[in-house]
């Protein structure tokens, strides 16, 4: 039924969206033109759904990051065109010889929206807040790269447990003693100097300091809204950001008004230190969860940027038009993310690496992506997608049915005889279903396997996968930062390793050792070597997972939009974006990395996790 509704809406959307429209595609906002050559109206950006939180410590979704990035500045920021980390609140930084200690020197003219100065103490306090278990920050683990941060976090959590539970943890040897925060490698040396000591020399640490979790919040505001019970912190009243009048921020914009599930209206902040580089006076974020409606709005000129694809048929039609040179607002880019299947290595038949290898080699990834993906996804040859400077993934064995059958026979299942029924679980979505059906056909045809498909909602799938109650299950992973470790540490032995996301039962001492060493290693070349060997174990030798393809994504934005650059990391800050007059796009946007739609449209994109 859901599919019928979606398809009907898609077709109607296609009709509505692609038919010639009165007035063409030029935006027609309500606000009038300010002056010739000036931005005529706010930049209007669609978001896939309503923002869940604007608290940087608690944000874990891309939609929230998009909205909060306009309000909060971190030490550094990742430029969306080059993916380089450039100064933000920190105007410069020093790195110690061993690569483990960063000293950030903060600019002195940065202020909060209430006029308070932004200081190193704000960062130290905000980072401590992320590490405090009461905050329940999803991305707290990103801070575990800081010396003693994990111990502080876990120790505080243990100390908050009721006494009987503490005793139970002590018996199990899982009790972590609380440690004072001054032993954590975060120290405000003075108002404008922040020193951060890491557990190892990490080439990606500045990616982290640009990330939302590492952005500061205004301490007096948070303290004012903290809810306490018997002297203990229970939660923070969300009114601190839900009511724009309460929200004190340090970014280029302030939130002027927010009507939930209608719009968020931002206005450029007068006292912002870098105001001249912020081109748009006003920005509106419009949450539209129905892709068909979103596309209609975009095509009717009610929005300037649609940073997610419309429904499949519309996307395909748009890509075709872009390839024919009939649209110049369609942009597709490969992502730092991989679509893969997890295999349960604790359950027959996937407890044998030869069987896992056989099932992987029986999949024609070229055919899969050509037939079932539509945004330019590339067949995977490894887990870590290409694009990390200095790192080259090992290439896994490709499609070879003959070799697959041989491996299966060696494992004791000649022509699939004796193979138990293999179940593929996936979360309900048409694209996942189509891929699962295709793989089922390939496994049946080439290996003689009996395959069953099971479609579950996302929560149930996660529960099944976590409890290892499955044979094969769909998964997807986007890297948090541009480094292989964001993919590879996931498959360290659970439960200590893997951050709770291993979910395959895979455990390999050599792999664990290599990843641990890579996390400690300062020499980039050696570190890459360690990671490459680890990935080799993962995708060439052991295969607890079967990588299928690298994700791609589609963005629609008008030619007159400047300063918006799609990239592999999905980092699309709006702070540098503006909507100019039609035809202005040539002026400053040539280097925008906006490869022509036609070129990009050749790289497709498709299934979204």
């Amino acid at each position, binding site marked *: 039924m859901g599919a019928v509704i979606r398809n009907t*809406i898609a077709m*109607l959307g296609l009709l509505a969206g692609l038919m010639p429209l009165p007035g063409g595609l030029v935006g027609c906002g309500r606000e009038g033109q300010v002056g010739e050559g000036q931005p005529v109206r706010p930049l209007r950006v669609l978001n896939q759904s309503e923002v869940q939180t604007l608290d940087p410590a608690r944000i874990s979704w891309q939609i*929230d990051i998009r909205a909060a990035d306009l309000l909060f500045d971190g030490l550094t920021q990742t430029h969306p065109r080059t993916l380089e980390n450039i100064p933000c609140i920190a105007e410069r930084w020093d790195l110690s010889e061993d690569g483990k200690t960063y000293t950030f020197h903060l600019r002195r003219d940065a202020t909060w929206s209430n006029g308070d100065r932004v200081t190193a103490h704000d960062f130290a306090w905000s980072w401590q807040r992320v590490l405090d278990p009461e905050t329940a*920050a999803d991305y*707290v683990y990103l801070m575990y790269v800081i010396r003693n941060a994990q111990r502080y976090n876990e120790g505080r*959590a243990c100390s908050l447990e009721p006494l009987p539970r503490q005793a139970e943890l002590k018996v199990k040897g899982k009790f972590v003693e609380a440690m004072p925060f001054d032993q954590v490698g975060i120290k405000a040396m003075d108002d404008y100097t922040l020193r951060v000591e890491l557990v190892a020399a990490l080439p990606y640490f500045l990616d982290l300091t640009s990330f939302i979790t590492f952005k500061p919040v205004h301490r007096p505001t948070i303290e004012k809204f903290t809810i306490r019970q018997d002297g203990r912190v229970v939660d923070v009243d969300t009114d601190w950001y839900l009511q724009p009048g309460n929200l004190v921020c340090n970014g280029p914009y302030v939130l002027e008004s927010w009507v939930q599930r209608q719009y968020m209206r931002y206005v450029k902040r007068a006292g912002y230190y870098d105001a001249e580089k912020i081109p748009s006076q006003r920005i509106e974020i419009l949450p539209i969860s129905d892709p068909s*409606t979103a596309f209609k709005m975009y095509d009717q000129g009610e929005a300037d940027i649609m940073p997610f694809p419309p429904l499949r048929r519309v996307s395909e039609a748009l890509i075709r038009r872009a390839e024919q040179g009939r649209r110049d607002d369609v942009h597709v880019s490969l992502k730092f993310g991989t679509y893969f299947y997890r295999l349960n290595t604790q359950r027959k038949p996937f407890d044998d690496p030869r069987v896992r290898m056989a099932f992987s080699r029986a999949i024609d990834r070229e055919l899969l992506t050509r037939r079932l993906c539509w945004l330019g996804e590339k067949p995977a040859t490894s887990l870590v997608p290409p694009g990390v400077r200095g790192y080259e993934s090992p290439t896994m064995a490709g499609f070879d049915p003959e070799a697959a059958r041989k491996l299966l026979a060696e494992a004791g299942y000649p022509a699939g005889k004796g193979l138990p029924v293999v179940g593929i679980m996936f979360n309900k979505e048409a694209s996942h279903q189509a891929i699962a059906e295709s793989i089922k056909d390939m496994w049946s045809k080439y290996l003689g396997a009996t395959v069953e498909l099971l479609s579950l909602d*996302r929560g149930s799938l996660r529960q099944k996968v976590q409890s290892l109650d499955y044979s094969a299950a769909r998964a997807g992973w986007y890297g948090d930062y541009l480094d292989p470790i964001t993919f590879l540490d996931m498959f360290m032995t659970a439960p200590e390793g893997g951050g709770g996301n291993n979910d395959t039962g895979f455990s390999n001492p050599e792999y664990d050792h290599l990843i641990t060493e890579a996390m400690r290693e300062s020499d980039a070349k050696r570190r890459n070597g360690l990671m490459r060997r680890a990935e080799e174990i993962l995708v060439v030798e052991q295969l607890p997972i079967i990588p299928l393809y690298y994700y791609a994504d589609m963005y629609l934005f008008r030619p007159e939009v400047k300063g918006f650059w799609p990239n592999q990391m999905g980092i699309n800050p709006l702070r540098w974006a503006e909507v100019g007059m039609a035809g202005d796009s040539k002026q400053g946007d040539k280097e925008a990395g906006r490869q022509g739609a036609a070129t990009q449209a050749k790289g497709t994109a498709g299934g979204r996790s």
Partner: protein
Amino acid sequence: MSTWLIRRLLALPVVLLVIYTVSFLLVEAAPGDPVLGQRDRIPPRVVVDRLRYMYNYDMPMWQRYGVWLGQYVRGDLGTSTSYGHQPVAQLVGPAFVRSAALGFMALALAVVVGTVVGIVAATHQNQWIDQASLVPVLLGISLPSFVTAAVLQILFAVVVPVFALGGWPDGWGEVLYHLTLPAIALAMPIVAYVSRLMRASMIETLRMDFVRTARAKGASPGRVVFKHALRNAFLPVLSFLGPAAAAVMTGSFVVEQVFRLPGMGDFFVKAVLDRDRRMVLSIVLVYAALLVTFNVVTDMMYGVLDPRIRVQEEKGAGS
């Protein structure tokens, strides 16, 4: 009447308690982890444990049942797990007002149009006008709202752009511009039902003795229909309108999605998908409270419209 009303009002908390209990058990039985929602990646154990504590999932089910019940009695709808710890009342409150406003518009439209169409069809029984009235009825009943909504949108917001493509009005001046199309989409199936009920009921009423008497006394056809027959003929429509009002005023997921109206429907569906148990329970309870209230109001309206029912009630109460 007052005794009857007090009895009905006293039953309200009992009905809500039963609905709360059944709904609580159902959401508890649903698979999926309520604190992890739609997350693909699992946060560290420290975070998951804290989330469980914040949302009372660190306690046994029966204890949680009691804690939440206590909160509902105090009027506290709890905290949403899927909307970053926001209070459910704060999320659902404005959404409910919007859905109710749109629902009221749709209902008013449906009652007026449905009643007129029904009366016209009944007074011209088996004539061409009666047959023609079947067309909108059949369309209203057979076309699902996601189709009517999208077609209306394309016709009147894209091809002939007289109404808004979607969105909630910014002020009173924009109400008709923004809400006409969604109100029509929402009203169409109700128009169909109301007009059919009205037609059947009116035909039957027009054959009754008191109508014949009115005609014999020389009352004009209009007076016969509107003064004498309409009150009686409206009763079946009224019994349909009670639950229909509750349903339409608590939001339609599809119509709200297509016209991007921030009402209750979207919240409810998303809450189910997100395993946001508190949100689901709270919306169910709001819906149940409305349904029960509208049923009481409907029963009261029977008495107003039909004196015979009022008399029977009074006799029953007196005996």
